[in-house]
């Protein structure tokens, strides 16, 4: 069984998503809704990280339950954002770029939860099925938020 692989990857990707959200919150302090909601949503990732670390013990994993950062990843993301924007200074465009990356990161996490849920069902692991049932809907809410904010920010940022 390779359930440990999925749990480990999800633990990594939830940490990454938390980082994306917090980084975004910091970058857009003057965009107040983004600042506050991103922080609320990062706390869900932290909660998932803790739950995954706990669940991982059953599968021989020793995962850190406290949320961790990955500076190299953030740097990479910032570079990509800058690339896509051609280093444009407008805050509206930066915001759009960051939501675009958030959307992609959250999609990855959502996919991982999908994999975990499928694997857990195959292996009849009830605790993991329950974990996915509890956490995955929150990832989907994070994803929908990113999508909604993209839609509403795009016209002003791109058509002005």
């Amino acid at each position: 069984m390779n359930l440990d692989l999925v749990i480990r990857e999800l633990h990594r990707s939830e940490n990454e998503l938390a980082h994306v959200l917090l980084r975004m919150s910091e970058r857009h302090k003057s965009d107040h809704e983004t600042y506050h909601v991103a922080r609320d949503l990062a706390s869900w990732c932290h909660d998932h990280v803790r739950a995954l670390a706990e669940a991982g013990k059953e599968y021989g994993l020793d995962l850190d339950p406290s949320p961790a950062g990955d500076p190299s990843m953030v740097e990479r993301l910032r570079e990509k954002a800058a690339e896509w924007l051609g280093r444009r200074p407008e805050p509206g465009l930066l915001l759009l770029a960051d939501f675009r990356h958030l959307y992609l990161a959250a999609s990855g996490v959502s996919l991982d939860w999908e994999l975990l849920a499928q694997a857990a069902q195959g292996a009849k692991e009830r605790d993991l099925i329950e974990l996915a049932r509890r956490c995955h809907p929150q990832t989907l809410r994070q994803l929908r938020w990113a999508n909604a904010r993209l839609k509403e920010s795009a016209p002003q940022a791109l058509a002005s």
Partner: protein
Amino acid sequence: MPHVDRIAEPWGTRTPYGPGEPWPVRVDSFLEAGVRAQDVERWVQSATILHSNGDGLDIAVKDGRVVGVRGRAEDRVNHGRLGPKDLYGWQAVNAPDRLTRPLVRQNGRLVETDWDTAMERVAGRVRQLLDEQGPSAVGFYTTGQLFLEEYYTLAVIAHGGIGTNHLDGNTRLCTATAAAALKESFGCDGQPGSYTDVDHADVIALYGHNMAETQTVLWTRILDRLAGPNPPALVCVDPRETPVARAATVHLANRPGTNVALMNGLLHEIIANGWIDERYLRDHVVGFQELRKRVHDFPVEEAARICDVPPDALREAARLIGTAQRLLSTVLQGFYQAHQATAAAVQVNNIHLVRGMLGRPGCGVLQMNGQPTAQNTRECGADGDLPGFRNWSNDTHVRDLARIWNVDPIDIPHYAPPTHAMQMFRYAEEGSIRFLYVTGTNPAVSLPELERIRSILAQERLFLVVQDIFLSETAQLADVVLPAATWAEKTGTFTNADRTVHLSDKAVEPPGEGRPDLDIFLDLAHRLDLRDKDGAPLVKWSDPEGAFEAWKECSRGRPCDYSGLSYARLRGSGGIQWPCDADRSGGTERLYAEGRFWSAPDYCEDYGHDLLTGAPVSDTEYRALNPDGKAIIKAAEYVPPHEQAGGEFPFWLTTGRTLYHFHTRTKTARAPQLQRAAPEPWVEMSPADASRDGFAEGDLLEIATPRGAVRARLRITEMRDGLVFLPFHYGYWDLPGGCGPGAGSGRAANELTITEWDPVSKQPLFKTAVARVSLVEVCPGTPSLAPTTTASRPVSSEVPATAGGAEAQAEESLP
């Protein structure tokens, strides 16, 4: 006829009545000194405009001037009564410092000019920006104080003509959450209840609603029930000891920022005790199981711990609400301007859904409004929504609107939700909105974090137009100021918080060159040469009645149907409640009788949102969730506020109204009786907090938050410990500084408030900020000048009672 000092006795004389009985008539009036009723030349029909209650009144006219007011005995809303603001506030119309000529900025100063010059500057700038950048450069920020005809015309100009998505009202600050909560629960805006529910209810729950000060006449109705046989029990949720709290059977003074936890606790207790209507839930509601699961985590002890209220009080409140036979609930700013605003207001709707208490006498929800015409801002689309409660994400609705306006659907922006006010100011801060047209409101005092707002409004690159009746703080920052006519000087209709439509006829001429807002909008449309798709003028009317007739067509078949109304029917009437069409020609007292809602996927105004993130629910998701058009129960997780009191900022700061003032006092400060009743700002603290810090009544204090500081004298009141309260009305126009604190100390409460809003309704948070308080000057023997008749009632018995004296003697006539 008996005379009463209505400053000293804001609610007047009791006329007790019992459940199901008609509320007795009491006609209140107040005339200018020296004018007797028989001297009045004409009485002109209107309604009140300094709050949302919509009380019918007649304006007294003599020698071409307004000389007083008298309540209309036959009006369904007030049965003749008027509140203090209505009795005295009309004097502002005659104020000597009204704006009488257009002003334009020249060499940094505002100078008088003629209408043609001013309007050409406005239209010229719009044309230039449309060429350079397109409609995204143009924003409109209106109010809850114009008339229906004006809002609808503005919506047509902005959405159908200019094609901008940037249109909102200051209703964002007062009533956005009411609309949002109704859309979440019922798929559509529209007040479910009626004021007449007060006549029947056996339990009335007021959530964050100091009705005694915000809707004085509706509170008078409750006081008369309380004085009569079989009075209702009152439940009050408010951190201050308001007049409502004093009259309540149970008062829950919860910790700021915990409304959702409180509501979840109440719902937990109601569900656990089986005080629910299973059949109603099965037949008319979706989403109950999710609620049951969510509130499972909020047993009374846990909710009481989070909210810091006695568990027994919470239990008793739940028992009253859960066992009521006829439950009326009202909600206002304590919920709307607080953290998790929509989530909390929706839980009040949920209580009525689990109890099956809607659409019957005494069983109603009143998600209240703050301003007199806020309902029209919402239904006409001047808050950015599409007119007639059309759904911007339903293409059929957009096509239908395009047909009515005779434009191409693509010309109506509907690619995203409308830009809310706070976002517009953000775009102006970033520089992508470069033209802002403000009508009848004063953001330089009323928006949060004023230093930021002033700096945005003062930018060179922003062209600011202000249309108002006085040179407000905001007008002082404008590039063009347009002098408007006000209530009594123009004709139009408006709708109160229980859907009652009133006609307000013109009684006198506006001063100088002042013009009705409608005429100014029509002038703008003409100068911009706005056309429909066949090349005819887009705006096809030239007077108020023409605009009303156009609106009737736009509203036909929609929930807010006005098609059965007309000026002729409204003239002489006691107010008529929409929907009013051929089948319901007398109007509609209560919505949602027999569990029928406007929430069918093809008809609803809104598919709803995630209550925490604000992300909209999609068409497909909504169809799956609610295919049969039932009411929607939405559960909410409790999230603590983002700012937490403690450390450097140990207090919670909350702001609010006082009975004697409205908005930023532009009118009420110009009525001497009202101004004297509450002449300057004050700060309220509890006795325990004041004595711990060694402060006494009347001491000058400084209140500071991470955003700024203000000074005010202390009033010690019975309220929650750990809380400070500031009234938000006071700005700078009547101080030497003019539009801001300058080098002096600030006094506007919004110097302190936080720039944060509810992600669903986008209503800013005025009730949850953190603050510190320090002593500036000890002032022994000089109490604060805060009113003693209201929530600011002093603990000390040595403070002189608020009174209006000889100049405030109003008449009360009891048949």
